[in-house]
C-alpha cells in the first residue's frame, strides 16, 4: 500500500477555514443589516444597493475574465514559446508532469528584479509570468528557480485568482456603497429627507456607516486570507519539488533583491503585489532585511495589511516541511518487491 509523507497541514487548514467563515459571516451580517435598515424605514435606498451589487459584481467578473491580460500588460510581459525560452519551458513542463496539471502559458516581463506571478481565471487560461531578473543566471540557481515556479504553479492549482476574487467581492460592493451613498446624499439628500427623517439620521448615512465598517473588516480578512494562500502555495510548491530549502533560499534572495532595487521599479510593480512571489514594496521600516527584525511584540500594523506573510513565517514553515520529508519510513526502508 502506498504510504504518504504529504499529510495536510491541519493548523493552516483550520486558520483558513475560520477566515473564510468570518468573511461569509460579515457578508451575511451586511446583507441582513441593509435589508433590516431598508425595511425599517420603508425603502428608498434600494436602488443604491442594487446599483452597488450590479457594479461590484460586474467589475469582479470583468477582473476575473481579464485578469491574465490586465496583469500581463501591467507588467509589460510577453508570452513566450518553447523555442524562445526553452529552459523556462522545460522546468514548467516537468513540474506540470509531476503535478499532473495543465500547462499554463508562460510569459517573461522585462523587469530586472527577480520575481514571478501567476494569474488567470482557470487552468486553461492561466499564465505564469517570470521577470527577466529571475531567469538571469547570476540571480538564482536552477533549483531555486524551480522552487519559485513550483510556488506559482501551486497558485494556479489552488485557483487562487478565483478564490480571492470571490473573497474581495464583498469589499468591492461595500466600497461602492459608501461612494454611492455619499454622492446620493450630496445631490439628492434634500428630496428624501422629507419622508425618512423620523429619527433624525438619514438612511443613507446609516448604510454608509455600515458599509465603512464592513469594508474595513473584510479588507483585513482578505489580507489574512491572502497570507494563508501564500503559505499554502509555499507548502505545495516545496512538496512538489521535494526541495523546501531551495525554495527558502530563493525567498531570501528575492526578498533581499527587493531592497536593493531603485524606487521607480518598485512603484511600477506595486499594483501587482498580490500576485507576486514576494511583495515588491514593503510597509515596514525594516524593509527587505526581514530576517533580522523577527520575534518580539504582537503583530505590527504593516503585517496586518500585508498581502504576503513575513519572511520568517515562510522560512519557518519550509523548515517544518523539510523535517517532515526527512522522516524515516515507518518500519524501516523497504526496497522493492524482490527481497
Amino acid at each position, binding site marked *: 500500500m*502506498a*504510504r*504518504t*509523507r*504529504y499529510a*495536510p497541514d491541519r493548523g*493552516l*487548514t483550520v486558520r*483558513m*477555514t475560520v477566515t*473564510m467563515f468570518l468573511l461569509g459571516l460579515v457578508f451575511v451580517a451586511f446583507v441582513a443589516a441593509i435589508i433590516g435598515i431598508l425595511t425599517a424605514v420603508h425603502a428608498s435606498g434600494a436602488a443604491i444597493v442594487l446599483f452597488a451589487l450590479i457594479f461590484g459584481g460586474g467589475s469582479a467578473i470583468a477582473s476575473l475574465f481579464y485578469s491574465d491580460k490586465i496583469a500581463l500588460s501591467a507588467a509589460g510581459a510577453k508570452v513566450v514559446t518553447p523555442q524562445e525560452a*526553452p529552459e523556462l519551458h*522545460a*522546468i514548467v*513542463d*516537468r513540474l*506540470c*508532469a*509531476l*503535478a*499532473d496539471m*495543465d*500547462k499554463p502559458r508562460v510569459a517573461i516581463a522585462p523587469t530586472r528584479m527577480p520575481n514571478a506571478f501567476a494569474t488567470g481565471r482557470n487552468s486553461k487560461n492561466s499564465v505564469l509570468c517570470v521577470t527577466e531578473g529571475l531567469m538571469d543566471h547570476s540571480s538564482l540557481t*536552477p*533549483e531555486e528557480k*524551480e522552487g519559485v515556479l513550483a510556488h506559482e504553479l*501551486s497558485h494556479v*492549482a*489552488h*485557483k*487562487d485568482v478565483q*478564490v480571492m476574487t470571490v473573497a474581495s467581492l464583498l469589499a468591492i460592493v461595500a466600497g461602492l456603497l459608501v461612494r454611492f451613498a455619499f454622492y446620493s446624499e450630496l445631490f439628492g439628500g434634500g428630496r428624501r429627507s422629507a419622508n425618512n427623517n423620523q429619527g433624525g439620521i438619514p438612511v443613507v448615512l446609516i448604510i454608509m456607516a455600515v458599509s465603512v465598517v464592513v469594508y474595513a473588516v473584510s479588507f483585513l480578512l482578505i489580507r489574512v486570507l491572502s497570507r*494563508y*494562500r501564500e503559505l*499554502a*502555495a509555499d507548502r*505545495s510548491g516545496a*512538496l*512538489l*519539488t*521535494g*526541495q*523546501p*530549502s*531551495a525554495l527558502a533560499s530563493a525567498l531570501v534572495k528575492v526578498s533581499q533583491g527587493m531592497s536593493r532595487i531603485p524606487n521607480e521599479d518598485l512603484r511600477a510593480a506595486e499594483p501587482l503585489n498580490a500576485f507576486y512571489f514576494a511583495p515588491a514594496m514593503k510597509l515596514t521600516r525594516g524593509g527587505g532585511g526581514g530576517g533580522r527584525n523577527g520575534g518580539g511584540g504582537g503583530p505590527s500594523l504593516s503585517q496586518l495589511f500585508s498581502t504576503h506573510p513575513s519572511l520568517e513565517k515562510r522560512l519557518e514553515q519550509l523548515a517544518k516541511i*523539510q523535517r517532515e*520529508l*526527512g*522522516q*524515516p*519510513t515507518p518500519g524501516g*526502508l*523497504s*526496497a*522493492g*518487491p*524482490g527481497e
Partner: protein
Amino acid sequence: MGFLDTLLGRTKPVQPKLDDLFALPSAAITLQASTGFVPTGSGSVCFRSVEGKTFSDIESEVRDLLNMDAGKPGGGLPVEVTKDSYGYTWLVSSHLSDELDALVTDLHAVNSALVDNGFGPQLLCTLVAFRDERERRLALVYLYKRGTFYPFAPLSGKERDNALEIQVKNALGDDLKIEQDLTRWFPVWGAPGV
C-alpha cells in the same frame, strides 16, 4: 482537485500509476512489426530527488538491489545514475535487446521502492529506448501521473521528428494508452540511454 481542496489551498501530491508499464513488452513487438524499431535494451526511470538523507538512502538501496543481478544471465549491466541540469535523477538500466521483460521488471523495482517509502509523487517518467536499422532514435516515454505513453524522437540538435512520433502513436494506439493531450508530450532532451 475537489472543491474543498481548492477552497483550502491544498494539493494532494499525485500518486503514480505503475501497472500500465507492463504493457510495454507486447507493444514493442507491434512496434517492430509496423515500423521496424527494436528495443535497445536500455531504459530509465526519472524522478525528482528529495533533499535529505532518507531519500538518498532509498536511492542507494534501489541501486544495490538492481545491481545484485548485474552480470548474471538476464541481469543486465550495473545501473547508471545521472543527474540532469534540471535537478532530476535518472537511473539507467541496460539489458540485451531481447530482454525487455527483465528491463521492465527492473524499472518496476525502482518505482515500487519509491512508492513503498512514500515518495511515489516524485516519479516523473520512464523512458525505453528504440532504434531502427537506419539508426534513428526513438523513446517511448511513460508518464507516471497519467499512466500514458508518448513517443519522443530526437533528431540532431534540438529538433523532434514529429512525423515519426505521429506514426508511432498511430501504430501503438491499440497496445498502449497513448497520451492524447499533445501539449503534455514534452521533450526530454539529453535523456540518458536514448
